[in-house]
């Protein structure tokens, strides 16, 4: 396809326009219940952003990492402290700086990736997860010496205007997610992303082609941690509205890993699909439990079933479609368009035969 604007094709621009119209115009006009914003849309955007971070390091660069929640915690608490101690920075400035702080952690804990890969790296990144949470928990300064363990997040104020209603917070998340998603897409398409993928597909070959492993891997970890940090800050300020290290435990890291893998490794839209699935599926399951079985099934059993299904899906996807739901979506689109084409051909044939 011919690019019409910079390197984007007409299809890309149409996709972007549709997404923007949907998220900015359609959703705010048709969804009026707060529940949808506070419990589904806002966490979806935040977790999708974190999943993009996981995608960068795992899907694009092929490094198995399992510490996304640790970087999210770093971002969230950096945000809290920046707003508290450096109020001049403003919300957006603090968000960027907290992302950068998370990125610094990403570089530090990404260094082992230069030496090891696979499960070895996974263990090294687990260290980041446990270390960051421990650090925040044990040093009172990070929590402003709050003894209760749960700190209320400050209100979001941008340019003197408070953003406290669910709809306003949704727009904040949407704006940040949109900007960072576009950035991620650009990086993935450009030379940065090509270097990542070269390292993923065969690191030794990539190195011999002149791709610096050091630079590429450290860069991937830094960018990944930046995304996770920003996502964590948004997650704490817009969704949880409180800061507690427990919220960012290893379970959240696994959740993000699942979003990344089930959504489709090495795709940006997979991050959104995966996050939506992992978030919505429990809601659906609970709804079935309440409405079909009228609460006859215990909530703990429902959450166990949910776990079994996630695990089972993971296995099934690994066996039949390692590229995840994004690939299924792609296949579906292709099939539909093929159907259209073939029906067009049939129409043409029949009209031709009528003429003759």
């Amino acid at each position, binding site marked *: 396809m011919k690019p019409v604007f910079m390197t984007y094709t007409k299809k890309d621009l149409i996709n972007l326009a549709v997404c923007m119209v949907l998220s900015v115009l359609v959703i705010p006009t048709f969804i009026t219940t707060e529940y949808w914003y506070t419990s589904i849309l806002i966490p979806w955007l935040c977790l999708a952003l974190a999943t993009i971070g996981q995608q960068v390091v795992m899907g694009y660069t092929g490094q198995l990492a399992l510490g996304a929640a640790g970087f999210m915690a770093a971002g969230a608490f950096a945000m809290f402290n920046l707003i508290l101690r450096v109020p001049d920075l403003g919300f957006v400035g603090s968000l960027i700086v907290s992302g950068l702080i998370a990125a610094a952690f990403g570089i530090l804990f990404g260094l082992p990736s230069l*030496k*090891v890969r696979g499960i070895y790296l996974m263990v*090294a990144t687990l260290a980041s997860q*446990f270390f960051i949470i421990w650090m925040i928990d*044990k040093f009172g300064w990070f929590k402003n010496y709050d003894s209760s363990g749960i700190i209320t997040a400050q209100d979001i104020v941008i340019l003197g205007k408070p953003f406290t209603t669910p709809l306003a917070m949704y727009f904040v998340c949407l704006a940040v997610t949109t900007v960072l998603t576009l950035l991620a897409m650009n990086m993935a398409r450009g030379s940065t992303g090509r270097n990542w993928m070269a390292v993923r597909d065969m690191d030794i070959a990539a190195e011999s082609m002149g791709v610096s492993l050091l630079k590429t891997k450290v860069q991937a970890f830094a960018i990944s941690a930046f995304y996770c940090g920003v996502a964590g800050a948004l997650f704490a300020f817009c969704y949880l509205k409180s800061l507690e290290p427990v919220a960012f435990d290893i379970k959240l890291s696994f959740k993000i890993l699942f979003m990344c893998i089930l959504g489709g490794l090495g795709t940006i839209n997979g991050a959104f699909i995966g996050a939506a699935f992992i978030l919505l599926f429990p809601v659906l399951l609970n709804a079935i439990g309440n409405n079909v079985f009228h609460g006859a099934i215990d909530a703990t059993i429902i959450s166990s079933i949910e776990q079994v299904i996630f695990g089972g899906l993971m*296995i099934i996807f690994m066996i039949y479609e390692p590229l995840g739901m994004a690939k299924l979506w792609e296949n579906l689109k292709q099939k539909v368009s093929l159907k259209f084409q073939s029906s067009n051909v049939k129409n043409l044939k029949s009209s031709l035969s009528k003429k003759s």
Partner: protein
Amino acid sequence: MVDELLFFMEVLVGGLLAGTMYSLVALGFVLIFKASATFNFSQGAMVFFSVLAFCGFMQDFNIPFVLAFILAALLMVVVGLCTERLVLRPLMNASEDTVLMATIGLGYVLEGLAQAAWGVEVRRLDLGIGDFPVPWIADNLKLFISALDIFAGLVAALMIIGLFLLFKYTKIGLGLRAVADDAGAASSIGIPLKHIMLLVWSAAGVVALVAGCMWGARAGVQFALVDLALKALPVLIIGGFSSIPGAIVGGLIIGATEKVLEVYIGPFFGGAIEGWAPYVLAIFFLLYRPEGLFGEKIIRRV
């Protein structure tokens, strides 16, 4: 001075014995890795699943101890069979990372199944051995060492000897080693790959059950066991993924270091550094000796 030394000894021995508990989890990991070069991330979930089933049989159905243990072991064989059939065989030619991710999924399935079947509340497991200092050692050597720790150490030692003999002197062991060396060549000379896999997964299941019993007797049978079992990963990195002695030595190193660090350095940082110390230790090992103490050197071909 003597008191300090005694205290240090106590911490060290306590750590070493607690380390054997990690070794027991790591052992199951090594078994599977040795025979199939698969990183079985679900080993921790298998520990949880097996011991919860064991407790469930005993407490919900009032089955006697020994019978319940045998039933739980049989259940683990069934789990091994299903895993081989449903997960590993279809992924025979998949890449390492794909299989690893599938085993993460398997772990989720096992955790969910265990909780759906037996509930989520913490269960007590009484092995008949108390988690308190042995009076004899306390009186004579002035060391306070838990009886359960010593028992766990003994069980671990027995299992190592058993597995060592199995690998070294039996025909099955020879087959296992052949498959580990080159699965393709082994199957071409008639070693039944499927049976070997089933055997290995069952053995790993039983090892998981034993490890689960030890952990369960100490900390209660609960979901936190899965997180504890994650500590088997640094153990493996230090010991090497393919070495049974490595799993033991790694466990001892991790156990001793984390306890000593916790007692002597922990108080300066507000404690609980054992949560991450093993992982950081593993990172240092990775930087200097990525294959671990006893592992085979990793050679990658382009």
